[in-house]
Each structure stands twice: as C-alpha cells, then as structure tokens.
C-alpha cells in the first residue's frame, strides 16, 4: 500500500468503529452525531478517484466525508461538542460540517435537499467551464424524495456533470428499504439516467466506479451510483438499532462484509504490510483520535457575541459593507427606550443581549 495521503486516511476511519462518539447535546432523534461507521469507509475510495476541485455534498452523516476532504480530527470533535475550534465554530453542529476550500459543501439536515443543491453545484461547474464534477450523496431513505427526481430531470435536460450517489444501507432510520420503496433498485430509478450498482463495502470497487462516473458525467451528463453498504449502529444516539432488525443480521455483515477487514486481508495477502505494522498504524490513529478529543474538550465554547455574527455575509446596505450582524445590531438602528417610563423588563444580567443583540 502506498503511503499517499489518501490511503493514510483509510485507517483513520477505523477509529470510528467503536464506540460511537457521543454528542453532548440533547438526545433527540435527529441527533445523528454518531453512527458514522463502516458504511463510511467508501468516501475514502471515492476520494482516491477524484480531486479536491470536484465537489461533494451530502446529508447529515458528514463526519468522514469532511475528514476525507482534508478536515482535521480536532475540527470534527470540537464541532460535535459545540466548541469554537469546530469546523463551523460550534454554530453548525454534527449535521453542518463544511469545507468550502476543498469543495465540500456540507452537511445538510433536510433529507433529500442536498440532491438539488448538488445538481446546482454541477450546474455552476459547467457554467464556469471547470471540467469538474459533483458527487451528491444521499441515502436509500432520501431516494424517494420528489425533489431528487426534479433535479435529476433538469440535470439530464441540461447535461450537468452530476453524479448522484445513493448510499444504500437498507434502512431509512428505522424503516427497511422494502417498506419504503416499491422499487429498491435505486440505481435503476433514474429511468432515462444510467445507473451502476457498486459494492460499497469494497473501497477499491468504489474507487473504480467513481472514476468511471466522473468520466461519464463530464461527457454525457448525470449518472447514478448505488453503493451497497450497511449501518451497524442505530440512526442516532436515541436509536438502539435493534428494534427493526436482528442482531444476527448486524453481526453477520460485520463478519462477512466489513470494509476495513477486507482491506486488511488484501494488504496482508499481498504482503504490503505485516500484521504488526497494521496494528501499529491502528494504535497510532487511536492515539491521534484520543488526543484530538482531549484537545477538543479544552477548546472553549464560542463567545456569547458569536450568537449574532454570520447571520448575513454583509451588513444591511450596499453602502455599509461591514460584517453582518442581526438587524438592529447597531446602536443607531434601535432607539433608546425612554427611560422616564422605567425599564421594568430588562433583566439585570450583563449578558442579556435581547432578541437583536443590542439591548
């Protein structure tokens, strides 16, 4: 195995296998801070086939995708803990990782929304004549969304270099694919758009498929890739993952199809490294992960003033041009209360900023 940067990334995903990284936020069903395990090795296969000028956009299980695009472990853990060193400075959270300088466009919480957005990225790439493509990732749960077909139709009409990648882990939250889709052959659902089914647990197959898809999309417009994969853990922290499937099923996949095991066997059988070398790599990665977690815990929470920053890219007025805050954020916009009437509502707390940050 070469020591290129992309392959060095492969073992770091091993650090995700156990245990799931707990989010420190509320234990809600939309909290998908964790559960980025085996199925998420395949983005690394994809990265091996493309460049950082190609765009990737995905839904809320974006942690490994972010790492694959060059994000750091510290940024990941800090963001999960809502700290200021997070990739979104603590303001996005688990579902909203972005790395625009590496053409990673997030990180989206609304199921299916990322597909038209990804087709929009492809539109912009074609408009700008960049000769690059966009991979818009979505799950089998999102595959039935109407907006996906709307965006696919436009992409096919306009020959956009959009590659729609269905990560089929066979469960949309707690609903098995056969209960959600009349046709769970997601790669065929493009109708007039061609599709390929790929073993998503085989990183090398993924790499080849993505390479093929990129060449195809640049010449012929959109294509669908269905990555056959599996989700070991539940949908989120509040889902044990065993109420809608058997434990035997889960352990069976782990034994027979685990992608990291597959890579390990390949490496060993081709004498590319010894058992000990692989164990050392794993140990090193776990150490890196532990250190990053410790560092993230030291990272401070965002400053209270950050509550009101980044609402806008630019203040409100073409003539002002300063950093955007909330409307009324400047003293001039909100007149002082007439103090003769007594301010009986404002709390004494110095940190009280009011709804517009300028109380």
């Amino acid at each position, binding site marked *: 195995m070469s020591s290129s940067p992309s392959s060095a990334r492969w073992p770091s995903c091993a650090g995700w296998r156990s245990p799931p990284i707990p989010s420190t936020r509320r234990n809600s069903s939309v909290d998908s801070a964790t559960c980025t395990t085996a199925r998420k090795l395949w983005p690394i296969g994809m990265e091996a086939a493309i460049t950082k000028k190609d765009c990737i956009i995905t839904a809320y299980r974006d942690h490994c995708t972010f790492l694959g695009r060059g994000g750091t472990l510290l940024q990941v853990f800090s963001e999960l803990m809502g700290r200021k060193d997070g990739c*979104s400075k603590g303001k*996005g959270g688990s579902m909203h990782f972005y790395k*625009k300088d590496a053409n990673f466009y997030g990180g989206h919480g*609304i199921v299916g929304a990322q597909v*038209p957005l990804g087709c929009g990225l492809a539109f912009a790439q074609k408009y700008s004549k960049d000769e690059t493509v966009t991979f818009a990732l979505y799950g089998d749960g999102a595959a039935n969304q109407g907006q996906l077909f709307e965006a696919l139709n436009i992409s096919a009409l306009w020959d956009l270099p959009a590659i729609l990648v269905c990560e089929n882990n066979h469960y949309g939250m707690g609903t098995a694919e056969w209960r959600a889709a009349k046709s769970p052959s997601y790669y065929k659902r493009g109708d007039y758009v061609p599709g390929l089914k790929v073993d998503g647990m085989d990183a090398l197959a993924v790499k080849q498929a993505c390479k093929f898809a990129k060449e195809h999309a640049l010449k012929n417009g959109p294509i669908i890739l269905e990555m056959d994969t599996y989700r070991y853990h539940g949908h989120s922290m509040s889902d044990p993952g065993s109420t809608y499937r058997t434990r035997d099923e889960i352990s069976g996949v782990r034994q027979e199809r685990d992608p990291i095991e597959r890579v390990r066997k390949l490496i060993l059988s081709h004498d590319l490294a010894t058992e000990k070398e692989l164990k050392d790599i794993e140990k090193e990665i776990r150490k890196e992960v532990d250190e990053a977690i410790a560092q993230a815990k030291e990272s401070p929470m965002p400053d209270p003033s950050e509550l009101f920053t980044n609402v806008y890219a630019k203040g409100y007025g*073409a003539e002002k041009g300063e950093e*955007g805050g909330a409307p009324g954020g400047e003293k001039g*916009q909100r007149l002082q209360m007439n103090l003769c009437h007594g301010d009986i509502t404002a709390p004494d707390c110095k940190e009280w900023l009011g709804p517009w940050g300028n109380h």
Partner: protein
Amino acid sequence: MWGILRQKVVAGGSPLVRIRPVVSALRSYSSAAKEMMVRDALNSALDEEMSADPKVFLMGEEVGEYQGAYKISKGLLDKYGPERVLDTPITEAGFTGIGVGAAYYGLKPVVEFMTFNFSMQAIDHIINSAAKSNYMSAGQMPVPIVFRGPNGAAAGVGAQHSHCYAAWYASCPGLKVLAPYNSEDARGLLKAAIRDPDPVVFLENELLYGESFPVSAEALDSSFCLPIGKAKIEREGKDVTITAFSKMVGFSLKAADILAKEGISAEVINLRSIRPLDRATINASVRKTNRLVTVEEGFPQHGIGAEICTSVIEDSFGYLDAPVERISGADVPMPYAANLERMAVPQVEDIVRAAKRACYRARPMAAVA
C-alpha cells in the same frame, strides 16, 4: 448626440464599451421627468446587472423563450443566450435547490417564481438551504441569490394565487426581504439585491408592473443602487404616520391626499425593505407625528403591521397619542367574487378611516366622565 455625450459622463466617465440595455430607458434627456413602467425598470435592472457581472444568470418558468410570464425578462434570452437565461420545468423544489447550489459555488442566480405562491414548493431551500447557510457554516458559505416574482393579491385569481409572503420570509434571520413600490424602487432595489452577497427575497406586485412612474436621471444610471434596510418618506406630514409597502404605498398616498383636504397631514413611509426593517425611520416619524397606522395587503395575524406596531410600542411608547392601528387584508382565504375580493384587501377609504380614528383619539379621558 448631446444626450449620448451626457450618457457617457453620467456612466462614470470611462469610455467602456457597454452593451446597451435592450429596453433602453436612456432616450433623450429633457427637463421633464422621464416616465418608466415598473416592468421596464425591472427589465433594465436585470439587463444591466447581467451585463456587468457574468456570474449573474436568470432561471425560472417561461423566463426565456416566452419572454417572461409578465414580460419582465423580455429580450434577455436573445441578448445573453440560453446558458444565462434558463427556462425551467414546472418543478420549483428542484430548480430552486439547483439555484441555491449554484450560489454555493459562487455564481449569482436570480430565481424567478411565477408568483410567490409557488415558492412554497421551494420554501425549504429558501429557508434551510439559503437563509441559514452562512450562519451554520460560521461564514464559509454565503449564498448570493435573489428570489423574485410577484407577491400578494392580483385581481380575480382566487385564494391559492393571492397570498402575501412578506411576513413569512421577513421573520427568518439570514434573509433580506425587499418590496419595491415604484420604478425607481424597482431598479435600485433589484440592483442592490443582485449585488448583495446574501439571499434576498424580492417581492414584486403584478398589478404594479404596468404602472408608470417618473424616474430621475440618477435612477437611470447603470450604477444606481438603493440601500437595503432604508425606508423612504414618500410624503412628509406631521399628524399621523402611515407605513406601507408595494401597492399599498400608492393607496396610502391617495389616502393622504384625501386626509389633507380634511386638515390631517399624513406622513407616508414606503418601507422598501421589510427585512431589515427600518425601525429608526419609522420610530423617528412616529416621535414626530405621535400616531401610527400600518397598512399591508397580507393577513393580519403575525403580519408586518404587527411587527411595526410592536417596534413602535417598544421604542416610542411615550410618544404615542393614540393606540397604534394596523390595516391589513381580511383574515380569510382570498375570495373570487369581485365584491368580496374588494372587501378582502385594504382600500383607500379604509386607510383614511384608520388615520382619522388615530387622530380623533386624542380627546382627554376627563371629558368622557
């Protein structure tokens, strides 16, 4: 000839070779005010911004070959080609998402909704994909997009085609919401919206498209831009403040004429910007007049008037001499029958009545006992 020389001087002095706007508003200069229809104002603004910045493109239903459902984009396909003026299928969720994705990449889309009623099919992208992205990414992902189209009631189009979305979009942090009234507003605000790096919801009005207004020479210049977040005092007065936006500005001005005959001097504020709301101008006006009437076509509950009234009560309570009044559309889905439809939206006489109520409430309580 003289007109052309002056045109070059006005356009910044440099002899740039510019493609002249298709709908040329620059006929000969004369001392009389130039008149321009709102639709031509919007067309010229789009034309100039597309000419100035190759990243700007227009997409929507019928914007290209049909020349625009309301002819706002007339001539633009011929001039800029099908790569920059794109006819979309009738799939708002899909094409709005595509527009937002293009804005993520750095292009500057102008997405047209045939009416804002159809924007509800795409509202997830407007709010969740566009408005919130810059915040969620802590500044990495600004979204320089404009969503525009006619908003609110037209005439005889029924309940599903007459909804006003000003309050819907203006409640969302991360969006800017503009509502032009006259041609100068249309030009200046659309140009500002396209240049702005944030998502802007641009609420036009179908019935205003065909109306003509005088425009100044300054407004006709291609660098003309109005500030976002500033209201305009259309008519100065001292007895009562009337706030309005879009078509209601015209009605308020007519109401002010009627009130003037009865000795009431009304100050009419054209909001122009619903978000950010120009609270400073509104409050300064109320501190002067001591009375407030807000006017809007949309539904009353949680409307623009509700916000303005609260803002004035929060900031200028001591200055009020009468309870604040809000005039809005009726709290019913828009009926079709012409007489009912007329009753369902504010008319000039409603504004007059409310202003008079605000003015006659100043009787001291002691006199009643």
